[in-house]
């Protein structure tokens, strides 16, 4: 009998994930053991501390290039960069999640299980502080994301996908206001997410059949061998890609995005738009660049069509949206298209510019949703576009900041929106994907319309009777907004340091 050989484990390299998942478990214990009144402070503190600690370990490990635990996890340049990005964006998201002064008790409901509309529900909507389970859930989700971008075999990737998704499904259902919409969004997200996971898993099975292994290096080696079933390869590749494109919100797998973004509590929408996007594209980059590099010319046209479709659908549908959160959701879909353009450059610049784009977009979108959470009336957030008319007269500072963020989304120079679009489009042209860039530029112009319309509404229209008041942001939201805006401006004016960093990091290990 052969001795069972234990795989080597580099705990240092895995430390960020271990810290987050451990902190999440601790958070569950807090939830059970601490008195209710003190939970919020402890949980928020723990979550922030864990995120910062994980970020510090990522920075300490910045030069690690290793494949560990028997090939399940690869810690390399892209992994560390993306993990760092997820942690930084997650930190800002946590600030938004932790805000409790804008709305009494925070954006989350106290007991999600109470029937919507019942007496008990009305009572808890009024004053009871929100559930503190959101913090361990968020940390679990962030931990899953860290694993997702570092997973070096498809099964680990699948586990990570579920670890990051399940808490998100729950979080989506926890909105304090408009609970039915929130629960509907969560259910839709859960059903469609499971559906997409099934595709992913089926794809993994086919690829196992094709290559005899699930780790990316094995698939890479199998691709080089011509005597295998190509049907298995391409069907498997297609199905795995579908699972990842679902999370990235690429057309036609984007259908969940507007409903979920609109229904979820705004801080969770921000978390999904910023962090989940990084994780999804991180995994997509790794799978395509590491495992399927050998068939790049075959998947490029198909994914190119998907990118075009995504940009078109995101941009065109954004034009007629009347709800701010749905507008931002379609904008996020279009941005997924631009990210795909960067991915499909399939060169080192493509990898680097996509990573840059993810960070730049993440900060801007966090700031955008942070502002959405501030514009409110007695019913909660006033997200209908018509309610934003004349906001510039009533709160010029907030409207000015939001205009700046919208200009960044539109890709105006001196904002990160310009530098990041420039980077991915430049990489795509170098990679010979001019057709994608042409569509990208055209859809950017279309997309500028809804953004500018909001700016025009805010500044050039008289405030109406129904223009909501803007809440004074608490310290946490102010900090999140400041970080988002400063990052958007700084990456637009001096993008070079981050671009250099992404360039240095743009090398996968296999």
């Amino acid at each position: 009998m052969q001795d069972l050989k234990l795989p080597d484990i580099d705990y240092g390299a895995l430390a960020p994930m271990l810290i987050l998942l451990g902190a999440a478990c601790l958070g569950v214990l807090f939830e059970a053991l601490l008195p209710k009144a003190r939970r919020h402070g402890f949980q928020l503190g723990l979550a922030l501390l864990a995120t910062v600690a994980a970020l510090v370990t990522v920075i300490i490990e910045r030069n690690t290039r290793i494949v560990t635990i028997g090939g399940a996890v690869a810690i390399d340049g892209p992994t560390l960069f993306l993990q760092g990005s997820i942690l930084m964006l997650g930190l800002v998201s946590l600030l938004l999640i932790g805000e409790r002064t804008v709305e009494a008790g925070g954006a989350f409901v106290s007991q999600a299980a109470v029937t919507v509309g019942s007496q008990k529900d009305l009572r808890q909507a009024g004053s009871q502080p929100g559930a503190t389970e959101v913090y361990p859930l968020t940390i679990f989700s962030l931990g899953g994301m860290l694993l997702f971008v570092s997973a070096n075999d498809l099964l680990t990737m699948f586990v990570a996908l579920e670890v990051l998704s399940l808490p998100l499904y729950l979080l989506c259902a926890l909105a304090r206001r408009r609970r039915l919409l929130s629960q509907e969004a969560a259910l839709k997200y859960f059903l469609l997410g499971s559906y997409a996971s099934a595709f992913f898993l089926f794809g993994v099975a086919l690829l196992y059949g094709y290559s005899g292994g699930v780790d990316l290096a094995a698939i890479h080696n199998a691709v080089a061998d011509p005597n295998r079933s190509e049907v298995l390869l391409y069907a498997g590749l297609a199905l795995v890609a579908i699972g990842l494109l679902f999370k990235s919100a690429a057309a036609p797998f984007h259908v969940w995005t507007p409903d979920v973004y609109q229904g979820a509590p705004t801080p969770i929408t921000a978390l999904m738009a910023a962090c989940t996007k990084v994780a999804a594209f991180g995994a997509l980059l790794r799978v395509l660049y590491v495992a399927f590099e050998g068939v790049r010319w075959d998947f490029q046209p198909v994914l190119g069509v998907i990118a075009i479709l995504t940009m078109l659908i995101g941009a065109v549908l954004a034009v007629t949206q009347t709800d701010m959160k749905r507008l931002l959701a379609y904008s996020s879909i279009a941005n997924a298209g631009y990210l795909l353009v960067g991915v499909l450059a399939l060169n080192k610049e493509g990898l680097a510019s996509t990573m840059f784009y993810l960070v730049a977009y993440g900060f801007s979108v966090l700031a955008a949703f942070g502002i959405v959470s501030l514009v409110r009336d007695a019913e909660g957030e006033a997200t209908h576009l018509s309610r934003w008319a004349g906001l510039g007269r009533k709160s010029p500072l907030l409207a000015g900041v939001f205009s700046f963020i919208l200009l960044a989304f539109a890709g105006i120079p001196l904002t990160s929106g310009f530098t990041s679009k420039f980077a991915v489009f430049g990489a795509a042209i170098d990679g010979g994907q001019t057709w994608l860039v042409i569509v990208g530029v055209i859809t950017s112009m279309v997309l500028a319309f809804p953004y500018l319309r909001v700016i025009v509404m805010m500044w050039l229209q008289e405030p109406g009777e129904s223009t909501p008041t803007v809440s004074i942001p608490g310290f946490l939201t102010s900090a999140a907004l400041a970080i988002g805006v400063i990052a958007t401006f700084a990456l637009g004016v001096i993008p070079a340091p981050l671009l250099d960093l992404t360039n240095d990091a743009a090398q996968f290990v296999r």
Partner: protein
Amino acid sequence: MEQTVEYAHATGLLSGIWLLVAIPLASATVLLLLGKRADKWGHWLGVLAVAATFVLGLSMFLSLRGLEAEARSAQQSLWDFITVGGLKVDFGLLFDPLSGVFVLLITGVGSLIHLYAVGYMEHDPGRRKFFAYFNLFVAAMLLLVLGNNYVMLYFGWEGVGLASYLLISFWYTRPSAATAGKKAFLMNRVGDAGLAIGIFLMFATLGTTQYDGVFNGVSTLSGGTVLVMGILLLLGAAGKSGQFPLQAWLPDAMEGPTPVSALIHAATMVTAGVYLIARSHAIFTANETLQTVVVTVGAITLLMGCIIGAAKDDIKRVLAWSTVSQIGYMFLGVGLGGAAYALAIIHLLAHGFFKANMFLGAGSVMHGMHDQVDIRRFGGLSKYMKWTWLTFMTGWLAIIGIPPLSGFFSKEPIIVAAFEREGWTAWLYGLAALLGAGLTAFYMTRLFVLTFHGPKRWTEDIHEPHESPLIMTVPLMLLAVGSIAAGWLMSTSVPDWLEPVFRQEEAEATPVLAHWLLTTLSIVVTLLGAGLAWALFRNGTAEQEQPAGVLVRAARRNLYTDAFNEAVFERPGIYLTRALVYLDNRGIDGVVNGLAATVGGSSGRLRRLQSGFVRSYALSMLTGAVLVVGAFLAIQLGWLA
């Protein structure tokens, strides 16, 4: 023999060239930023800044004089201004004999006019702002003459244009001043565009815009390129200096305060065109056709200015047309080339003194006469404004060229030089210059006699015109000294001084008539013109405009040049704009609106697919998945390929 241009590196005192630009600029900045807080003392800071610049400029001039003739230049590169691809432009300065005399003129005459303006603008609430703009002008003008490459020159060029625009429309509440400012701005744009394209051409053909690089490289260019480059530079020069065909803005620019007219639109800025051509002498002497074009422009302008000036009744406009005409003489000089370059510069400097003198004198008259500008309503002022009268007289005698005042030493040699051209062109340009001298004598005498002598024709509200305060008359006296003595002082020293710049051998050519004959002739013509005017206007003139012959009517309407501009440029421009607006509304907007409607419509239709039902979402995902898998397999199995 091929001469190469080299500039020495700035050392010692000369390494502070940048201060010449920085001091007035700093003063302007302080005055603009401090706003009302500087109202009480701002004008004195303005005067002080220019006076300090003058002292500094003078000491630099003297230290340059202490050097060997061939080593008289100091170049200083402060920082890289523009570095893009092959284009490298220094923020560099050059102090050589040519820029040296300009620095003295600008800061010297500038100091006197600044001093005068303290009195002139005393009752104006915007005095501090006025001095800020005035300092800004001085800084820009000094940058213009001190730059060591064409881009620096262009920088200063636009700076003086800006200051000129701000100062012409200084009393912007008057519609006429605002319009005049706009007119100056627009006509200057035409010239500036020419200059800019000329500089582009230099970079395209020579790869540099540095003076030394350009001048040394001119000989490698084809004749056609040099011609085009020169014409473009000439266009710029004509725009800034109010030369034909871009002269129309200069007389209107007199809407600005009188010190502005004296400093910017008589003594300094309008001579920037002459500076440009003199500085670019390597380009202009390289092509004979080019020189002929310059001479022609100068001759046409000098006659035109005289003729129109003789028919005008506004004291400042007569002086303005006289400026146009005198700069025409300078263009004639720089166009003739050779030794005449130095002559043109002498005339420029002399003109700076006597024209500034007369403008300030006119301002003094207006100051005492309730801002009246119509010379038909003056008369007999010599008894009331002794100092103004005396100093104006020196200016008048100087400009018409009575020996031994400065105009005689500066203008007469240009007339002689015009007669030195070859063949029939000597007669053409020589006689034009001679005729100009007679006409100048006529209209300047008319101006002088109608203003200071003859019967009083004042408006009813004036009883006892008063002489201006000392702060205004002292600069007048100093300028009068300059008007008397400058020509004689400069007639031999300046050509020697400028020799290292122009490096022209003494002209061998002889005029078609003997030198002494020409001198006598020009004095006779001058006396004839002056005498005729004296005889005609000794007893005053009608107080209203009288019917007149064809020529006078044409001259009153600026020889129909404004009408020409309106018919040829303005109206077609307006029609073109209207046509473009129509095309924009109907054509381009139609396409854009159509596209927008298409996007909006398809957005509305696509939106219906987002039904909110999970089942339809799942179905669309499934369809997508089937298509994606199908596409992969199709490509791979060659069904599509």
